[in-house]
């Protein structure tokens, strides 16, 4: 329990430092807002429209593929720790598991979800 308490204390220290310095610089720094200062930066020209527009679907694709593979990685850790007991049986099982994932990986690759260079209309 001691260990986890220390991590919480470290998080608290880090957060306190961060909040403290933001508050301090808010106290020390001047505050003279002008409309230009409060506008988002767009290389000197007046900003056009809202920034939160539609974005490339690629980012969603990457996020979804990441989820699939990240679960795989999370699954690999307990397997890695018990491999010495599992022996070759465990090895064959993980190879089968990886082959199933490989099918999905090959599909995703072929569909072009991993390509960022090609322009599509």
């Amino acid at each position, binding site marked *: 329990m001691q260990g*986890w308490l220390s991590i919480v204390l*470290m998080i608290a220290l880090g957060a306190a430092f*961060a909040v403290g310095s*933001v508050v301090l610089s808010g106290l020390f*720094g001047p505050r003279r807002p002008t409309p230009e*200062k409060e506008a988002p*930066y767009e290389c000197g020209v007046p900003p056009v429209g809202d920034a939160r527009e539609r974005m490339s679907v690629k980012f969603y694709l990457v996020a979804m593929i990441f989820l699939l593979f990240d679960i795989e990685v999370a699954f690999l*850790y307990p397997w*890695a720790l018990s491999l*010495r007991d599992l022996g070759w049986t465990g090895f064959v099982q993980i190879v089968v598991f990886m082959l199933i994932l490989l099918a999905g990986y090959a599909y995703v690759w072929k569909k072009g979800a991993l390509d960022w260079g090609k322009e599509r209309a």
Partner: protein
Amino acid sequence: MSPTLIAQIVILLFVFFMLLNSAAIMVYVERKVAALLQQRFGPYLTGPHGLLQPLADVIKLMFKEELRPKAADAFLFTLAPVISVTAAFAAFAVVPFGASTTFFGLLDHPIPLQVADVNVAVLVIFAITSMGVYGIVLSGWSSNSKYALLGGLRSSAQMISYELSYGMALGAVLLLGNSLSLTELVNGQAGYWFHVIPRWFVFLQPVGFVIFMIAGIAETNRAPFDFPEAEQELVAGYHTEYSSMRFAMFFMAEYINMVTVSAVATDLFLGGWHGPFLPASLGWIWFLVKVGALLFFYVWMRWTLPRYRYDQLMSFGWKVLLPIAALNLLVTAAGVIYFGA
């Protein structure tokens, strides 16, 4: 209060201040090494050899005006740098930096030289470094600026892509060390082969080490993978709209993350505090030397290599690094069973 508890609190505070210092030192080292590589002087007016430059930077940033776009989400805009810094500090909490010690007999039982001795340290590091993505994404989104949003999005895609290879490289080390505790993983690297070659995992896992370092550089958004702040195309990426201390927070988080990645790589691959010539109680000197060497490598890379293109980065991560990492893991697994190591 028991002496052990006091010692633990001292270690906690010591690590905290050393992390703060490391950010300042890295700011200085980065500028000096950059100057060295480009045949300039670098900072040299503030203090001897410009050593007070980081302090001057902090004071300057402290007295700067805090700007915030009118359309920005005020709460998230302030929260984002806080998350970044907090995650950076927290990740180092489980990294051991020396052998267990009694502090020259002051304590009855030796305690490990780390803030938090947990048996799943590798998982904690994996979890907390992932939290760092939130700081960058939230800063990008809350700024309501086009460059910031693009930088934040790119960064999140980049970090989650390389996290897979990072995790698989870690998995291969777990196979060798058969533990999730960093202390036990380091202790598994004690001793020598043939009395000469240290039993570091880097010699068993050369591919894993390279993958870990590449993914680590991508995770910390450093050149040649510094897309979230690719100046030539995104102005400054996710922190375009930040100024004053909030801006400094992101830089601090980046440098502390670099230190953490280097420290974890040292523990996992380079034998942690094990090394010749020094007694075990002074092993932390070896630890510092190895971390310092990796950090220098980081800076050296930044000022030597040009930035990749974004599509190159993504296809390299998904099509090259990930298959190699997976193969490396399987080969390691087969080797572990075959040799029964």
